[in-house]
């Protein structure tokens, strides 16, 4: 038996290109359905786990999937904005506790999530180092952000401009890192949390600048009266908020119309949730309330329908591949007919010939299995990241 494996091994090594091609083909065909299953299971797990723990979401009317994906997974799809008035509506109902979210901006590739401290209590997140944000311009970063950007408490992170070519756009804001969240194995690990007002400062709704009453260079002042001072654009705008300039930061306009992307509504009980949902259905023309679980279930339903189609395609490809492999082997044996007849002439039995061929097929199958298995292990290791890239971001 060992001699059969030895001879088969020598043949396989000699014909390594053919062997590698066969091993790759078999591995790929075996890998695809398993990989698909792993990725779909992980996507189901990732999508559902967060959706289940988020009872209701209030947002602008429109695509409910965009609203859920943006609010739960901070994806790049941006739903229309709602105003701060929506918070009051939820509060005034006494049916749920509102947690506002504003997820428009990014710091490098990481989303900046403007919210309140209720968010961390709701998600049961703990601060691993430092503290939660307490004042304008402070940030609490996720564990992965800290690890990947090598950020520590006391460091700082810069918001990214929305459009590099918009010269009149808002300047990047340098935010101080005051805390790092414990690892949560969720998208919160890859987010930068700030107070809502900080996101409005990034947007330009609020800003800080040199005190116009104390300008030393009078050439910067265009006009001055008791109530109004008009200055030139040379006046210094602050791009970082610290204790010294905090007082100079102020907001313009009506705060009740400042934007939000969504509100997580945490209802008092099931009945409250039903009543609140009903009110939005009947009263609100510009806003919607959605159950993230239902939206994700619909999404997964679609994904699994696609999976069934992909499974069928993989099956057809697998059958074609098996036929092709059968063809390769039969052509190979036809080409080796002379060799087989030589070993039969030397005195080899037919069963030994079958053993030799079986050993070759077994070695190829074992290598394909090993390659497939190790690829699946690698996929399993990176499944979270891959699913995030494929289905969430």
């Amino acid at each position: 038996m060992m001699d059969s494996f030895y001879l088969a091994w020598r043949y396989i090594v000699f014909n390594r290109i053919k062997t590698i091609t066969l091993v790759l083909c078999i591995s790929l065909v075996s890998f695809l359905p398993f990989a698909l299953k792993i990725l779909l299971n992980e996507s189901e797990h990732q999508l559902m786990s967060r959706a289940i723990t988020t009872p209701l979401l209030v947002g602008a009317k429109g695509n409910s999937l965009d609203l859920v994906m943006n609010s739960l997974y901070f994806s790049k799809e941006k739903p229309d904005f709602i105003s701060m008035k929506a918070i009051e509506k939820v509060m005034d109902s006494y049916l749920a506790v509102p947690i506002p979210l504003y997820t428009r901006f990014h710091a490098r590739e990481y989303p900046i999530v403007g919210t309140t401290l209720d968010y961390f209590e709701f998600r049961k997140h703990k601060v691993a180092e430092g503290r939660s944000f307490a004042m304008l311009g402070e940030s609490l970063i996720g564990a992965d952000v800290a690890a990947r950007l090598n950020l520590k408490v006391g460091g700082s992170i810069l918001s990214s401009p929305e459009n590099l070519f918009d010269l009149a756009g808002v300047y990047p804001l340098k935010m101080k890192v005051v805390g790092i969240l414990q690892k949560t194995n969720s998208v919160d690990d890859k987010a930068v949390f700030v107070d809502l007002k900080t996101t409005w400062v990034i947007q330009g709704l609020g800003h800080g600048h040199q005190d116009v009453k104390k300008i030393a260079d009078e050439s910067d002042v265009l006009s001055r009266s008791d109530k109004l001072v008009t200055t030139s654009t040379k006046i210094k705008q602050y791009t970082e908020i610290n204790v010294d300039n905090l007082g100079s930061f102020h907001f313009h306009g009506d705060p009740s119309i400042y934007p939000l992307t969504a509100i997580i509504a945490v209802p008092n009980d099931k009945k409250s949730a039903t009543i609140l949902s009903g009110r939005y259905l009947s009263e609100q023309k510009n806003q919607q309330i959605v159950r993230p679980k239902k939206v994700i279930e619909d999404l997964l339903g679609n994904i699994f329908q696609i999976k069934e189609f992909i499974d069928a395609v993989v099956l057809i490809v697998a059958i074609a591949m098996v036929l092709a492999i059968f063809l390769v082997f039969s052509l190979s044996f036809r080409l080796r007919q002379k060799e087989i007849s030589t070993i039969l002439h030397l005195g080899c039995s037919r069963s030994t010939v079958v053993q030799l061929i079986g050993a070759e097929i077994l070695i190829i199958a074992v290598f394909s299995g090993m390659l497939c298995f190790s690829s699946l292990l690698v996929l399993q290791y990176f499944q979270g990241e891959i699913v995030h890239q494929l289905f969430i971001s």
Partner: protein
Amino acid sequence: MININSLELSYGTDEFRLSIPQLKIESTEKVAIIGPSGSGKTTLLKLISGIIQPQRGRVEIGEVAINELSDPQCRDYRVSNIGYIFQDFELLDYLNVQDNILHPFRITQSLKIDNQVRDRVKSLAEEMGIADKLKRLTNNLSQGEKQRTAICRAMITAPKLILADEATGNLDPSNKTKILDALFRSTDKNKATLIAVTHDHELLDRFDRVIDFKQFCDGESV
């Protein structure tokens, strides 16, 4: 001693017909078989080795009637007692010289590779002048080296009967003499019988006997 009696074999509808009323070859005899192409020289070697079976007649090697053995018995007998040198070497290109020589041992349960066999490979390779080529793949060998490897493979089981089908056919004159010398040396050492099909008439003097296959067309006994 090899004894062939009333042997008859035909292919198709009289396209080929071999008829040997009687043929005797003594032990340790070196016999050359000559004859026109298609006269059945290679077929005779295959009949003697049991690779093909006659329609009639009997082929005896010593006490054994090889055409009366079952297929597995015949294969077992062949691999242990007959060394066959094929016309175009029929070496396996994916094995090195050493593995090609050891090949009969790897394809049969009844033969086991041990240190004695490994030593025999070395001594045969030295005898044939290919000791330094044992680890080389056969693709990288000259025609002469390939033929020497094929002879070593035929001799590795120390057979008492060697069947050589055009063993010198593909070689240049100087190599032909060298290969035949090596084959004769090895045959003598083993006290084996040699039956060699050849077209090289200049080498016939070196054999104990020459059988011309033309005679079997007339159904003569030898």
